[in-house]
């Protein structure tokens, strides 16, 4: 069993974790303009913030610049899956 090691960018390959930035929760769709104030507040501010494996946006900001979706354990910081985010 090896260490989880550096973060693996789908395009750039294994890189030091310092090159990546957390990009927030992958939001579902952006609520319509007519949505309620509470719905808009939920979209803006409420987060899953799961303890354990969480789905997160990451950006390879000191690299290819791609937005990525990672399944990462928020206690051990081990990334189980990472892939390109799509529109």
């Amino acid at each position, binding site marked *: 069993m*090896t*260490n989880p090691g550096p973060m693996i960018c789908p395009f750039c390959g294994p890189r030091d974790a310092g090159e990546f930035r957390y990009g927030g929760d992958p939001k579902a769709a952006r*609520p319509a*303009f007519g949505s309620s*104030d509470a719905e808009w507040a939920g979209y803006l501010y409420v987060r899953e913030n799961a303890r354990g494996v969480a789905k997160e946006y990451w950006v390879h900001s000191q690299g290819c610049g791609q*937005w990525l979706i990672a399944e990462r354990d928020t206690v051990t910081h081990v990334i189980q899956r990472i892939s390109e985010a799509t529109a």
Partner: protein
Amino acid sequence: MTGPVRIAKAGGCALPFTFAGRSMQGRAGDTIASALLANGISTVGRSFKYRRPRGILSAGEDEPNAIVDVTLNGVRVPNVRATTQALEAGMQVSPVLGRGAALLTKLLSPFLASGFYYKTFLWPNWHMFEPAIRRMAGLGRIDPASRMSAGPGGNLSVDLCVVGAGRSGLRAAIRGAQAGQSVLLVERQDVPGGSSLWRGGDGVAGLLSEARAVGVTVWTGSTAFGAYENGRLGVHRQGDSVTLGGSLWVVQAAEVVLATGAIERPMLFERNDLPGVMLADATLNYLRRHGVLCGARPIVATNNDSAYPVALALAEVGAKVTVVDSRPPSERSAAAAKRGIRVLTRARIARALGRGRVSGMVLADGQRIEGDLIAVSGGWTPTLHLYCQAGGKAIWDEGKSILVPAFPVPGISLAGRVAGKWEAPDDLPWAWSAAPEIPGDGVSRKVWIDLQNDVTLGDVELAARENFTSIEHLKRYTTLGMATDQGKTANLLGAAAMAQATGRATTDLGLTTYRPPYVPVPMAALAGLSRGPVQSPLRRLAAEAAHRAMGATLWDYGGLLRPAFYGADEGSIVEECLAARQGAVVFDASSLGKVAVMGPKAGELLDFLFAGRMSTLQPGRIRYGLTLNEAGIVTDDGVVLCLGPDHFLVSCSSSHVGGFVASAEEWRQTRFGRDAVLIHDRTAHWATMSLSGPKAKAIMAGLGIVGTLDDDAFPHMAFVMGQFMGREARVARVSFTGERGYEISVPAGLAVALWPSLIEAGAVPCGIEALGVLRAEKGFIYVGQDTDGETMPHDLGFDAPRLKRRMGFVGDRALQLPVAGDADRKQLVGLAREGGGVIPAGAHLIEDGPRRSIGFVTSSHQSPSLGRGIALALIEGGRARIGEQVTWFDLGKTGRATVTPACAYDPDGSRLHV
């Protein structure tokens, strides 16, 4: 009573040093501790609270007592651990705790049990007692003038990192290299070999040469002090002197093998803190590695087999050895007796004897034994620190009487004694493990567990009585394990003592959290290269050399080094302002963003990013706009140029370029699609010099960069292409000063040519300070200074997005939230101080009855052109107050001012077309 003495003759060259002012000699290869012992020194300091004399206990990083300040070549290094620091010629070593207040604390000691300070010092208040308490506390003394440098360090990626170059570590490294792994072997001591260097057992030299032969990299004088996430280790490599910080290496290892051995535990008996009580293994270390016999008549007290080789070795050099073994007679004890060593079995120590130094001991059965050294071995604790830091959990195995890993941690395995594999080297099968023995009732509780922080068995039992029974409460209430040795010899004994006091098993109590660093690490090494201009670096302008040549004063503006003003002092700012209004000035605007947005959905993306529509912009034209975040707060302002169909250039403000590109890419990749629009940051390719003032047009005509300057063909908020020195240039008519303006962008390589050519053509150089005044006179905002975390577009006068309920841009919905319609929103207005003076930026506007702040001044300057102070401010319901008087407040002073529109100079903008 002789105490420690050097018995081996020759050795390394002599090294003169001083201890507490007395000059002495050690020799090359000594640690400070072995040199002190060689000079017969017993007391190396005094304990934290009771000021009791403290002697050297160990020979490694677990030492609690031998902490000294060392001065060498004029550099004073506080809190040096004597047992691991190599002696250097000329060292001035001083004990950390002086004699002061020893008598007083000796008298008060019954009242100074753990936590006493929580129960008193309540009257009159803590401030009266704190200074005295602080003076008594603390160890080393910092010298304000001393500095320590460090090496740059490095990053290393290996398949396998082995920690500890003892026999097990060497074997693990060789296995890894033979399996084709790249292997790094890290060893704290100055030579590989681990405990075999004093415990004996051959084969180390062979293993070392084999390791090197198969390509293992061996680092000595290097400590793996921290295990961080994803298999990263922090390794500190010592410098060649105590005054050098060494360096920090970050090692990314796919696999880590810990061959870190175990730490010997002391035994618990009354007055066990006397100098002359040492760990048995340490006395063997000093004998074999440094030729120092720590006592002529040593008493070796043990509850396991590991102390017998120590007894034999001491006897071999002529010491009169007595062994006190708490266990029944064994084959080991019989063998020792045959060698003429006096062995007492089933013997427990009750009390140590001696004033200031050991003179013997009293056993539980009352027997007195003379001796000038008590070498104790109370069992061994596997060094599981890095396994625990990496997320593991160490639990006490009652059966084996050692700490064991509760579960495996990916990528980390153990080898040798740290894994409880006690088969010792070759011919000496030892049983090293033993359960800690806690003195039962009816025995004095003046038994020391944490020697540096003076925590006794009585303190542990007091904590139990007061229900501080969690292991973490025990630590924090008594400070057990919170000293510079972090409880390496104390924590387990503390846990066992608390377990006994509360009728629990040591396993149930658990241990406190293992935290980096394993041993204290020089801050200079952790800082590494990040010093001076390499720390938090600033971006630079392409034409910086030209600005320096003109004697510009350079300041830090939002992460950029830019000219503040060009004259000898700040007085020249006024001249630069007047030149802008009367003649023409040029300032270096190269740091403004130039972000290309291209592709079929480029216009659509810009309409989404900006609060106003951009897709309708015609080629050759420019439009100003605000960007918001999804909460409707203004994040930046800038202009957009349409360079052609599906080809726009966004010029955002200098300190927000990175933010704009990141935000644009987020929406591009998660909403619009990567192929439909492309974003290229071209900022670094262009240098931009901004010419403005009534004479700007004349100067442009002289330069010949662009063909026509006719206002109809080349109106304000338009741009044309031109040529400069044979390469393409772009000239845009935008103005941040309110004067007619021409922003000339050329490839960055030509910056140092363009700037002087504009100066020679008659433009006066203008710095960012003057620019700040000029734009404030116009009421133009700096986002982040004139706006805060709550400012929305309509607070700045851009009412359309909210009032027209425009849809389809970032923050659109937020502009319809209740807060967006509050009457007391802070709005940007101007202020004219009564009497014409300047209201300091940062002053507040206030309302009385009761007094409260209704806003604050964001920008404020003396306006050379208007001859009075001008200011911008964010005030509740500001626009409705225009024409009214308000009271300002600054650091206790107050005054009056009139609320004005934000723009104080040329409100109708006629200057643009002069």
